[in-house]
């Protein structure tokens, strides 16, 4: 039998084949297909163009998370289109109060071994559950929802072998920024990034989601993790233990490239404007004045992230010139954070706590920057204009780095405050 990588194994199973090889074009059955309020209306238009009234893929979900609740009438109208389609087509609706699609997919929909396609580039987040999850455009998602199938070119796989364990104050975000800094923003274009090794075995699920979330920032088609006992415990915590199954690459699988990282050597890392691969240690950017800090998003808006931020914010206050915006990734995260008293810590520290959603990260509402302003965000992108103003600059860092930066008013290595 051919030894397969995780990506090859999942795609072969969905194409009804025993094995596939990189470069092969396969037509695969889709398990989960999603869209959000930015890409959903166009997907619906294309489904209608196909003449299809009822969706066929087993799980089809539309998330209203990018502009939630709607800040403008045009968006309110687009959201009504989504609600009406879900009511008539058999697709599921995740409305404005529920949170960011990728967090919701992790909590409620994706399973190990699944093929997940989404009209959002960070759909790759679900790869942390041992799924093949990839972002596509509205038309691909329309075809996937309507017919239950999609076509894929089987990607070559890079094996990212992580040794050691992250040190205190250093987070998965620092690891992935370090990796992207090394690979480059197009360094893994079309490839699957398969994470493994003792550093991954020891990494809790929130960190695994952060790593897979940003696979696309190196150009990758998917990021994948093995499904192990950590995966099982996560799914059990979400009330979905029956969805778990173990999954790993075959020993002897062929990788195009091996990338080795020592988690123990990673330091708090920041991506500077305006590309994600423009990285530097946070300590080297001390003195960079920051006007706004955003903690949240599909990259770092999970409970573990809010805990990491609260650890540094407890009993402290944001700098007078630095606004602090905290956006839990989902209602479930917000609820748990409230129960633990984390929201009080944030309010006491001078933070704004917003509705779960994508708003500020994508420059729609809830934290748009002024001309010349600098933001440090826990998001995954710092592109020119990303947060709603092409005259502003964005740095990316971990929740701990973000919290330390909010307190100091300038980019700060969080270990200074531990």
């Amino acid at each position, binding site marked *: 039998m051919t030894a397969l990588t995780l990506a090859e194994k999942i795609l072969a199973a969905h194409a009804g084949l025993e094995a596939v090889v990189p*470069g*092969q*074009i396969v*037509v695969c059955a889709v398990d989960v297909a999603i869209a959000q309020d*930015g*890409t959903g*209306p*166009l997907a619906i238009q*294309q489904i209608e*163009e*196909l*003449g299809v009234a009822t969706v066929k893929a087993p799980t089809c979900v539309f998330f209203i998370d*990018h*502009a939630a609740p709607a800040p*403008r009438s*045009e*968006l309110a*109208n*687009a959201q009504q*289109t989504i609600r009406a389609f879900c009511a008539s087509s058999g697709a599921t609706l995740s409305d404005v109060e529920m949170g960011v699609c990728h967090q919701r997919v992790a909590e409620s929909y994706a399973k190990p071994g699944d093929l997940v396609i*989404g*009209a*959002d*580039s960070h*759909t790759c987040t679900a790869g942390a559950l041992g799924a093949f999850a990839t*972002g*596509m*455009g*509205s*038309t*691909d998602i*329309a*075809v996937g929802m309507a*017919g239950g*199938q999609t*076509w894929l*070119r089987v990607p070559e796989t890079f094996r990212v072998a992580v040794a050691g364990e992250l040190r205190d104050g250093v987070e998965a975000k620092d690891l992935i920024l370090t990796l992207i800094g090394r690979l480059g*923003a*197009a360094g893994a*274009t*079309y490839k699957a990034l398969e994470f493994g090794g003792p550093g991954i075995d020891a990494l809790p699920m929130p960190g695994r989601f952060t790593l897979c979330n940003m696979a*696309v920032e190196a*150009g990758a*088609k998917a990021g994948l993790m093995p499904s192990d006992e950590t995966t099982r415990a996560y799914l059990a915590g979400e009330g979905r233990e029956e969805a778990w199954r173990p999954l790993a690459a075959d020993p002897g699988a062929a990788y195009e490239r091996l990338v080795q990282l020592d988690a123990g050597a990673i330091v708090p890392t920041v991506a500077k404007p305006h*590309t994600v691969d423009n990285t530097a240690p946070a300590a080297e950017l001390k003195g960079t004045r920051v006007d706004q800090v955003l903690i949240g998003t599909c990259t770092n808006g999970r409970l573990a992230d809010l805990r990491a931020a609260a650890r540094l914010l407890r009993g402290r206050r944001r700098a007078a010139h630095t606004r602090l915006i905290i956006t839990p990734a989902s209602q479930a995260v917000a609820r748990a954070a409230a129960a633990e008293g984390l929201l009080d810590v944030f309010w006491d520290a001078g933070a704004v706590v917003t509705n779960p959603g994508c708003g500020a990260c*994508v*420059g*729609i509402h809830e934290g*748009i920057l002024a001309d010349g302003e600098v933001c440090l965000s826990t998001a995954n*992108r710092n*592109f*020119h*204009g*990303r*947060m*709603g*103003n*092409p005259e502003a600059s964005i740095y990316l860092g971990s929740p701990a780095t973000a919290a330390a930066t909010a307190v100091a008013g300038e980019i700060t290595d969080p270990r200074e405050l531990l």
Partner: protein
Amino acid sequence: MSRELLRGKAWLFGDDISTDHIAPGRLFHLRTNLPELAKHVLEDARPEVAARLAPGDLIVGGRNFGLGSSREHAPRIIKLAGAGAVLAQSFARIFFRNAINIGLPALQCDTSGIGEQDELEVDLIAGEVRDLSTGAVIPFVPLPPVMVTILSDGGLVAHVKKHGGFALPQG
């Protein structure tokens, strides 16, 4: 393919042109009004281009064109604004797939010698770009057979409707 010979002026862009440059998030409310959004195409990279782009003109990028979001609106408004094709040293994966799906040729070639406003002719059959201003002939990387099929059928939705599902060549 619908048109085999494209001809127009080159509009030059640098490396890493993101979908935020092409279709900014601050114009999110125009996503359901593509003709209006198209008036802002590539605004955050070169604000003057949208108003001056003539039908058939060519968007010429550097490396990793179209990185970032999956928003298909990006290639759609490039096409709607009148561009005949996008030429770049390389493309981000989702943008490339989206462009072909909606019938916009995205062609990978060495764009380094192309000058701003050069008159270009793109021959989709011969697989080359002819820079009529300099006389240079630039081959482009042939599209994979699967992409040629989708583009020839007029995009992915047209392909699926024509064949009642996927009818794609292997390899």
